[in-house]
């Protein structure tokens, strides 16, 4: 894909909203356009985590295998959202599998490439971390709500 196009797409993605132009150039340098068909895996649990995805369209389910209880899907990620931050935090391995439940269009950012750039330019690094922190915070909040199992019959209020 044309660098020009990539730049346009990246500029529009909510995760990079407000990113200064020179930082955008940095990101473009690590970026490539990718596509996944419905029913394929983007990554498997335990794999080396080397990619960071900005989702443009489609839906991806995070799943884990619970052996006797089968496969459990605990989160979907959709347009405008991001997938995977294990590239940033050692030991750089995926904790979940990611399965496309529809055709998916995304921008893949090379993890190692991004990591190097963060270490070389701390201002850029800080901005990336801040954005990720926001995503993680929202994800944690939502996950906690899921944990409360509010719709469950046994969802007891402590008494």
């Amino acid at each position, binding site marked *: 894909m044309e660098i020009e196009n990539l730049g346009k797409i990246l500029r529009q993605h909510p995760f990079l909203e407000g990113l200064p132009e020179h930082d955008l150039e940095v990101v473009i340098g690590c970026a490539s356009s990718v596509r996944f068909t419905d029913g394929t895996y983007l990554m498997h649990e335990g794999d080396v985590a080397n990619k960071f995805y900005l989702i443009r369209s489609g839906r991806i389910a995070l799943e884990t295998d619970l052996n006797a209880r089968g496969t459990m899907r605990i989160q979907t990620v959709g347009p405008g959202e991001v997938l995977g931050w294990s590239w940033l935090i050692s030991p750089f391995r995926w904790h979940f599998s990611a399965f496309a439940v529809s055709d998916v269009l995304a921008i893949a950012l090379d993890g190692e490439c991004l990591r190097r750039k963060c270490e070389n330019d701390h201002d850029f690094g800080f901005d990336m971390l801040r954005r990720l922190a926001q995503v993680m915070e929202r994800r944690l909040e939502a996950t906690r709500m899921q944990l409360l199992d509010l719709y469950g*019959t*046994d*969802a*007891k*209020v*402590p*008494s």
Partner: protein
Amino acid sequence: MRTIESSDFQRILDALVTRGYTLLGPVVRDSAIVIDEIRDMKDLPRNFGDHQEPSHYSLSQRNDGAYFGFAAGPVAWKKYLFPPRVTLFTAQRSGKGFSVTPGIDGWSPRKLAFVGIRACDLNAVAIQDRVFSAQEFVDPMYAAIRERVFTIAVHCTAPGETCFCTSMGAGPKADHGFDLAVTELAGEGRHIFVVEPGSAAGSEILEEAALRESTEEELHCAEDAVERSAASISKRMEIDGLPQILRENLEHPEWEAVAKRCLACANCTMVCPTCFCSAVEDSTDLEGTGAQRQRRWDSCFTMSFARVAGGNIRPSIRARYRQWLTHKLGNWVDQFGTMGCVGCGRCITWCPAGIDITDEVDVIRGNGVHV
């Protein structure tokens, strides 16, 4: 205003009995002055006084022959207007369905005469009237009993230590809502009642009794007795702006402090003349073919009061005490236009932990407690 000798007061009671009234009044039982059916002046607690303090109630001896020389006892008149247990309906299975008979069908409530009701309790009745007869739904049983009540109020001349009716604008003088009101003047060689009518029904009874006009001196004495009564009430509750203050202090540390003392025994709600919470109980007979629904008194202090599917809204005593107080002195105003408290002091007297609602209000207001 008329005057009647105490020895003749029976005539007024008789006139009511002739009209089909069941007389209810104070009687001594189990070392307390409660309310029960009476036939005669002799049934009244003559020469009894009471001594009340937080968590203390005892009777004392008087020597002036007064019939009403005491303050509020543990029983309130709501026992008759809003009985502790009533059957709302019965149902009978038939085939796959069932038929329902309202509890009020074929029920004829008695005519009741409340003899010796105090100003605080009259106000309490008016407050419960608002709850049961003046909102969008009317309790037909309450309405039926209520319209058959005749009241003989007594202006208090012996208020108790726990009384604070003056702060609530609810006494010691009854100023409305009665059929007859009396001031008892006993001692100094006489025993009379100065009587005033408060309604057409009351006037009718007075006319029939053909009492003499009260003298200036008697009127003056009666007024005086009530004024002295009011002056002797030392307990105070500052109610100005209180609902808003309570709304702003729902997390005040005092709720936690009082919760350490409160046993959630629900005594206060049982003796309170305005508390109206109830529970609905459905049950069947042993065969399972007949069912009934009953209403019984309930209390916001009980653990099950605020139970919901999967949990409990107010599991802590802190929350339940707060609910009771903020309802009575705050939310009640939004709901019914008045506070739910008349200053009768019963909750203070009958609290085994001696918790004093007026002290709690002082603390929440930031005034500290006057020891």
